C-alpha cells in the first residue's frame, strides 16, 4: 500500500471516508491525484459485520460523547446520542439502507419555490438542477441503483407487500420497491441481495453499496490513495496568509501527528465537520475556520422524520428481507394546500426486536407498550422522511464543558422543530396510519424520530458568502484550499434521502479539484 510522508505538502487530505469523503478520495485517486484520507474509525469488511443489532452498533456506531439541547425528543430520550452514524472506514455507508433518490428540480431552489417561510432560513442552492443530471447518472451507476440505468427493481418482501396493498387501496400511484443501492442482480463485482434483512448492520454479502468495500479499496489500488484508519483529526492548521497547510490528528495510541497538505477536504458528517472548523480557531480566525459568515454549525437539518408501525391479526415478519423495501412517492411533491411547504417520502422500514424495543416509543412502559411488542411478528413498518426547514438556531456548537477522549470540546447539537416540520409530520402520520388501516391494521403507532441518521446543512452552500460557508463547489468562501465534501454542505435538505446527492456532489467536486490542481489554481 502506498504511503505518503507526513511532510509531503503536495497531497490532498480528506477527513472522513464516508459517502462524501470515501467517494471523493477514490475519484481523485482515479484521476491521478495523491490523497491521504484520515478516518477516525477502524476498518470493517463484510466478513466482520454481524447480524445482531446491538452488537453491530457497538462495532460500528460513533459513540464518542456529544451533548444535546432544544425541544426535540431525542434530546430527552437519547441525550448523548443525537445521531446514529458510523465511525469506520466507509462511514455511515456501512449502516445505510441504500435508498437513492434524486432531488426534485424545485427542491434545488427552495427559497424561490416556497417563498418566505417565517422563522426558516431558506436559501436556493447555487446549483442549477441541470448541472446535476450527469453527476446523478454517474452516482447511480457507481452505486448500482435499481430502477435506474436499466437495472431491475428488487423483489418486494412481506413488509413491502402490506405497504403496497395499503398504498393502492388509498389511491397512491407512485408505489414501488424503490431506487436502491442494492443489487437486484450481480453488478460491479458485487452479489445480488440475498434478503437477509440486516442492511443497517453492514451487508455481509456486499449486495448493498458501501464505500468501505468499493471506492476505498479501488482508490487504494491506484497507488494514489493512502487511507489511515484510527486517525482522528483534531485541528486544521494554516499559515500567515490564511491558507490551510495541514492537519493534526491523533493515531490510535494517542500520538499527535501533523500531516501536511496542499488542499484539505472535510467530510466528517454534519456534527464533526463544523466541530473541526470551530475547534481549529486561531488568533487569525478566532471564530473558527471559514466562519466569517458566522454560519459554521448553523442551519442544522435532520429531515422531518417519524415512523408508523402497525399490527395486524396475522403474521407479517417484516424483518425478513431488505430493511427498506419500498416507497410511496405521491406525497413528495410541493403542495402547500396540505398545510406545509415541501414534501415527504414514505419508505418501508423494519427493525429487529431489540431495536424495536428501544425505538418504538422510547421511555414507554407497561402493557400499552408491551402488547405492541407481543405482536411483533404481526407488525409492518414504514419510515417518513421529508424536507425540514433550516433554522439558524438549530446548530452545532462546541461544548467546552465536555471533552472527548482526546481532550477536545465535543459537539452540542441544539434542535427544535419548525412549525412546518410539525405540520408535515402530523400529515405523514395520518397518511401512514391510513395506509395500514386500509389493509386492516388492528393498531397503529405513530413513532417519534430516532436519533438522526440524515445530518445536513451545518456548512451550507450559498451564492453569497454572507449566507453560508461554501460556494457551489463546496469550496469555503474564506479559504481557497479548504473544501467541505459531505452532507454538511447542503443548502436545504429536500425530501429525499441525501446520500445519492452527497455522492453526486463528491464526484462533481473531484472534477473541480482535479481541474483546479492542473490549472495551477490550488
Amino acid at each position: 500500500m502506498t504511503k505518503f510522508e507526513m511532510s509531503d505538502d503536495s497531497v490532498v487530505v480528506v477527513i472522513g471516508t464516508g459517502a462524501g469523503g470515501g467517494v471523493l478520495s477514490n475519484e481523485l485517486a482515479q484521476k491521478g491525484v495523491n490523497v491521504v484520507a484520515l478516518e477516525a474509525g477502524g476498518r470493517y469488511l463484510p466478513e466482520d459485520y454481524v447480524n445482531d443489532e446491538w452488537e453491530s452498533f457497538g462495532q460500528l456506531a460513533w459513540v464518542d460523547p456529544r451533548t444535546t439541547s432544544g425541544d426535540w425528543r431525542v434530546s430527552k430520550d437519547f441525550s448523548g446520542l443525537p445521531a446514529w452514524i458510523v465511525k469506520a472506514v466507509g462511514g455511515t455507508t456501512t449502516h445505510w439502507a441504500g435508498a437513492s433518490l434524486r432531488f426534485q428540480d424545485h427542491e434545488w431552489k427552495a427559497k424561490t419555490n416556497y417563498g418566505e417561510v417565517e422563522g426558516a432560513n431558506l436559501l436556493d442552492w447555487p446549483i442549477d438542477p441541470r448541472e446535476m443530471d450527469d453527476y446523478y447518472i454517474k452516482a447511480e451507476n457507481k452505486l448500482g441503483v435499481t430502477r435506474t440505468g436499466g437495472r431491475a427493481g428488487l423483489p418486494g418482501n412481506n413488509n413491502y407487500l402490506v405497504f403496497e396493498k395499503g398504498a393502492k387501496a388509498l389511491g397512491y400511484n407512485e408505489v414501488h420497491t424503490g431506487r436502491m443501492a442494492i443489487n437486484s442482480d450481480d453488478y460491479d463485482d458485487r452479489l445480488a441481495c440475498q434478503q437477509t434483512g440486516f442492511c443497517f448492520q453492514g451487508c455481509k454479502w456486499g449486495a448493498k453499496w458501501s464505500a468501505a468495500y468499493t471506492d476505498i479499496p479501488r482508490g487504494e489500488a491506484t497507488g494514489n490513495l493512502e487511507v489511515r484508519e484510527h486517525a482522528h483529526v483534531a485541528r486544521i492548521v494554516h499559515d500567515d496568509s490564511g491558507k490551510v497547510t495541514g492537519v493534526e490528528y491523533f493515531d490510535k495510541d494517542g500520538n499527535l501527528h501533523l500531516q501536511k497538505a496542499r488542499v484539505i477536504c472535510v467530510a466528517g458528517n454534519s456534527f464533526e465537520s463544523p466541530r473541526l472548523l470551530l475547534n481549529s480557531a486561531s488568533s487569525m480566525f478566532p471564530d473558527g475556520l471559514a466562519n466569517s459568515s458566522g454560519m459554521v454549525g448553523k442551519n442544522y437539518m435532520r429531515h422531518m422524520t417519524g415512523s408508523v408501525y402497525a399490527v395486524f391479526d396475522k403474521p407479517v415478519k417484516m424483518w425478513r428481507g431488505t430493511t427498506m423495501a419500498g416507497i410511496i412517492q405521491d406525497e413528495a411533491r410541493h403542495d402547500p394546500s396540505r398545510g406545509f411547504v415541501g414534501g415527504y417520502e414514505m419508505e418501508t422500514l423494519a427493525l429487529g426486536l431489540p431495536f424495536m424495543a428501544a425505538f418504538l416509543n422510547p421511555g414507554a412502559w407497561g402493557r400499552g407498550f408491551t402488547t405492541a411488542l407481543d405482536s411483533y411478528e404481526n407488525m409492518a413498518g414504514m419510515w417518513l422522511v421529508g424536507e425540514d426547514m433550516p433554522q439558524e438556531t438549530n446548530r452545532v456548537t462546541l461544548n467546552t464543558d465536555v471533552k472527548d477522549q482526546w481532550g477536545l470540546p465535543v459537539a452540542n447539537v441544539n434542535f427544535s422543530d419548525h412549525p412546518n416540520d410539525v405540520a408535515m409530520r402530523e400529515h405523514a402520520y395520518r397518511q401512514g396510519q391510513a395506509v395500514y388501516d386500509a389493509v386492516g391494521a388492528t393498531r397503529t403507532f405513530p413513532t417519534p424520530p430516532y436519533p438522526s441518521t440524515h445530518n445536513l446543512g451545518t456548512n451550507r452552500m450559498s451564492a453569497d458568502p454572507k449566507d453560508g460557508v461554501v460556494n457551489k463547489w463546496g469550496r469555503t468562501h474564506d479559504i481557497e484550499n479548504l473544501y467541505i465534501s459531505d452532507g454538511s454542505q447542503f443548502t436545504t435538505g429536500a425530501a429525499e434521502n441525501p446520500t445519492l446527492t452527497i455522492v453526486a456532489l463528491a464526484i462533481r467536486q473531484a472534477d473541480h479539484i482535479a481541474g483546479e490542481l492542473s490549472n495551477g489554481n490550488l
Partner: protein
Amino acid sequence: MTLTPTPRKLTRRQLLQSSVAAGTIAVAGTGFIAAPNAAWALEVTEITEHQLATLVQMARDTYPHDSVGDEYYVIAVKGYDNADQKEFIAQGVAKLDDLAQADGAPDYLSTKWEDNRVALLKQIEDDAFFQTIRGGLVTGLYNQKAVWPIFGYEGESFSFGGYIDRGFNDINWL
C-alpha cells in the same frame, strides 16, 4: 416487613429439585431466590433476596409479557447484585415498599394486582431508580437471544443464506 412467600430453609439443590410455595418467585432466605417450579434459582451476594425478588417483579410489571418466563426477567436484573449498586437498590426498593405500605400492603411484592403495583411504579416513574431499572431492561430483556423466539423474531440470518429462499415474501393473507 414480611416476605412472601414464607421463607423456607432449602439448599440450592433442594430448591432446584422441589417446587416451593405458590407465588411468582420464592424468596428462600438462604441467599437464593427461585422459581416456584424450580425452573431456576439464583444466588444473591450483595443485595438481599427480597430486593432481587422485588426487582424481578418490578421488571415484569414494567415490561409485562405473559408468555415470557421469569427466568428472563431474572437475567435482566441480576446484574444489580453488586457492591457498587447495593445502596442504590436498597434505597429504591425501600421507597417502593414504603409506598406500598402507605397503600395498605406489607410491601410491593405482596401488592397482589398488577394494576396496583403499576400505580406504585407510576409514583416513582421519574426517580433515577425506576429510570435506571427501566432503561437497563430495554437491552437487558429484549436483547436476550433466548427471548427472541417467544416474539417470533428470527435473529441472525446470514448463516442460513438470508431469506431469499426462506420466505421473505411468503405472506399469504393479503
